[in-house]
């Protein structure tokens, strides 16, 4: 199995690089998602709005820290996976001058701008939204600096990745506010209104996410054979399976649990929350597989 042999050559250094990368993905998507979620639901009840902003701001700081940790980890990897190489000025400089450095600068400045999400609390809604949305755009640009989306046709590949990431961020960013909303007394008016509208927005969001992901994967892989024979293709299948599980959960929320919640069934809030918690776990798994896809393997060399 190609995926096993791809993992067999992995040392502790690479595992650390992968875990930090997965954490960075989670933080950056959560931060961007908080901005998007607040924009899509301006009528969130106050406590939920503040909770979403706070989580977004914390996630942005975590992502900044992880992006800065990833830099010496990458330098260390290039020098053979050791601490001396991680602080080697030549290797650190090489990483910084390259595509990773551009990604680092864009990601850190974008995530700093996302902090403007907190401005709203001080009654500057327009400015807060504008700045934090600018931050989201910079974070998205950061993601298209490294990897095979820089190949031609660059605009098409980059746009597909950005659409895929925006939809993913919106989904990831919605989980915590929805989890909190589901704690409201069953049938509570605010919760019902927002859960209902989320269900309608999410159908399109998830559609975009899957569509952009499938087209992107087809472009990068260039056929069905590499999907089955390369490590990259096999990890991709794994990712698709976890996403399919996530979609099942989301569908059951939309068509079963949320209607039960709206009817005020007493056990519905608890079941809805358990389901969202499981979604959070699966999202973590998807991000981990994605980090393996982008660091250990590549569509080119298996």
């Amino acid at each position: 199995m190609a995926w096993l042999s791809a993992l067999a050559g992995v040392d502790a250094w690479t595992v650390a690089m992968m875990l930090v990368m997965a954490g960075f993905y989670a933080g950056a998507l959560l931060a961007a998602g908080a901005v998007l979620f607040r924009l899509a639901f301006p009528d969130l009840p106050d406590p939920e709005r503040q909770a979403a902003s706070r989580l977004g701001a914390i996630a942005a700081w975590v992502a900044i820290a992880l992006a800065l940790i990833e830099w010496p980890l990458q330098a260390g990897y290039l020098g053979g996976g050791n601490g001396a190489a991680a602080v080697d000025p030549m290797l650190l400089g090489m990483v910084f001058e390259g595509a990773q450095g551009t990604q680092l600068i864009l990601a850190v400045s974008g995530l700093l701008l996302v902090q403007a999400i907190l401005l709203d609390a001080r009654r500057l809604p327009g400015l807060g939204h504008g700045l934090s949305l600018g931050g989201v755009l910079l974070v998205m640009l950061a993601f298209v600096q490294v990897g095979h989306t820089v190949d031609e046709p660059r605009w098409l590949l980059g746009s597909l990745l950005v659409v895929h990431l925006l939809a993913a961020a919106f989904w990831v960013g919605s989980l915590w506010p929805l989890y909190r909303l589901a704690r409201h007394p069953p049938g509570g008016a605010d919760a019902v209104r927002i859960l209902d509208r989320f269900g309608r927005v999410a159908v399109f969001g998830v559609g975009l996410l899957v569509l952009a992901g499938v087209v992107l994967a087809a472009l990068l892989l260039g056929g069905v054979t590499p999907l089955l024979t390369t490590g990259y293709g096999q990890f991709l299948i794994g990712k698709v399976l976890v996403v399919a599980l996530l979609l099942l959960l989301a569908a059951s929320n939309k068509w079963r649990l949320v209607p039960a919640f709206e009817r005020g069934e007493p056990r519905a809030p608890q079941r809805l929350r358990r389901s969202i918690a499981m979604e959070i776990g699966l999202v973590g798994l998807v991000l981990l597989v994605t980090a393996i896809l982008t660091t250990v393997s590549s569509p080119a060399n298996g």
Partner: protein
Amino acid sequence: MMTIRTRNTLRSALAALLLAFAAPLMAHEGEMGQVPEDGSTVQGTPEEIGIHFDGAMRITQFDVIGPQGRVSLENEPGSDPTEEYHVKPAGSMEPGNYEVRWRGLARDGHMMSGTFRFTVED
């Protein structure tokens, strides 16, 4: 809610798009070959050891490991982008099995690594 009709339209559009792009894209620099070739046997100390790529790579690690540990090399070509990376052994190499471990940075920011092996005979 999406109707069955829009769903079918979407599905056929997606299928058309996939067919249109079924040819593989140019991926980044790949390994083209090794000197001495992976798995080969050479008589005596090879004049040079190296790899070549189909695009510019920045090699950041290139260790030749044999029965006596790491082989000392006469030149260190540095990590400027190159398609051809070659080193010369500083002295004669003992007969035995050798492994080359390399790492490098591709133009697209991907960090690459690889190994190849060869045998030195008297």
